[in-house]
């Protein structure tokens, strides 16, 4: 019974999103004009290229964020079943978080977290 409900939930989610976007696209009145597609920059044409080399700090910061975001994603299922498993789960998760904490220290030492 469990898997059917999950499939149903995914289908309804997907259908709801598709309906909203699809109807919005189908029913809306559209009129094309050359400036509608251009980038909006306070009413002016954009100047210069946006394909420039950014400071590497942005990329590193994003990576470190992604790392710890995924870590939280793993904690959710653990938190749901934590009550049944008891003490063993707790020790495992402490070890898991500890390893990631070492990663954080490494990122800090390599100044990936220091903003420009």
């Amino acid at each position, binding site marked *: 019974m469990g898997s059917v409900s999950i499939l149903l939930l995914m289908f309804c989610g997907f259908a709801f999103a598709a309906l909203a976007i699809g109807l919005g696209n189908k029913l*809306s009145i*559209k*009129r094309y*004009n*050359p*400036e*509608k597609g251009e980038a*909006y920059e306070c*009413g*002016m044409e954009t100047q210069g290229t946006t394909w420039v080399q950014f400071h590497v700090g942005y990329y590193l910061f994003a990576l470190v964020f992604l790392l710890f975001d995924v870590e939280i994603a793993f904690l959710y299922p653990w938190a749901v079943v934590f009550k049944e498993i008891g003490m063993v789960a707790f020790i495992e998760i402490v070890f898991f978080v500890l390893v990631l904490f070492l990663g954080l220290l490494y990122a800090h030492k390599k100044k990936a977290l220091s903003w420009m």
Partner: protein
Amino acid sequence: MDVNKNTEPFPGEIYEDETGNTNFLVSSIDKLSNWARSNSLWPLTFGTSCCAIEMMSAASAKYDWSRFGFEVARATPRQADLIIVAGTITKKMAPVLKRLYNQMPEPKYVIAMGACTITGGPFFYNSYTVVKGVDNIIPVDVYIPGCPPRPEALLEGMMKLQEKIRHSRAYVIDKPKKEENDD
């Protein structure tokens, strides 16, 4: 150049409707979408001079335009349904306003607030940069006279716009395309 020598027509020719005046055959779907559109018109934060202060007063607690669903003032034209042109438009600002209007998604409306946007207002005579009336640039739905108009006048203008939306065809664009002979 003197007024009486000004033979060619008044520079602010008003847009004619492509489908004549908005006809009143409004089906039930139109009624539903018009009801939804007219009660949640999101204005673009676009104030050039003194009328912007009266628009802020209309947004403040005393006059409170959020009673009519106007409260969410969006900064980008992508999410705005309505431009309230509040303040003088000069020749250098005209292409910017035109561009902002073009970048707005389709059911879009324009309120010309203040005498400057209707005919150039106090700057009609002897000003070498003021555009005499915003309808030279973009099609206008509601004109609100006053310099600056009181917040109640702005609210009344908005109610006029809501009325106009309720009586218009929801899925027909009644504003003619005016790209080809743009100066």
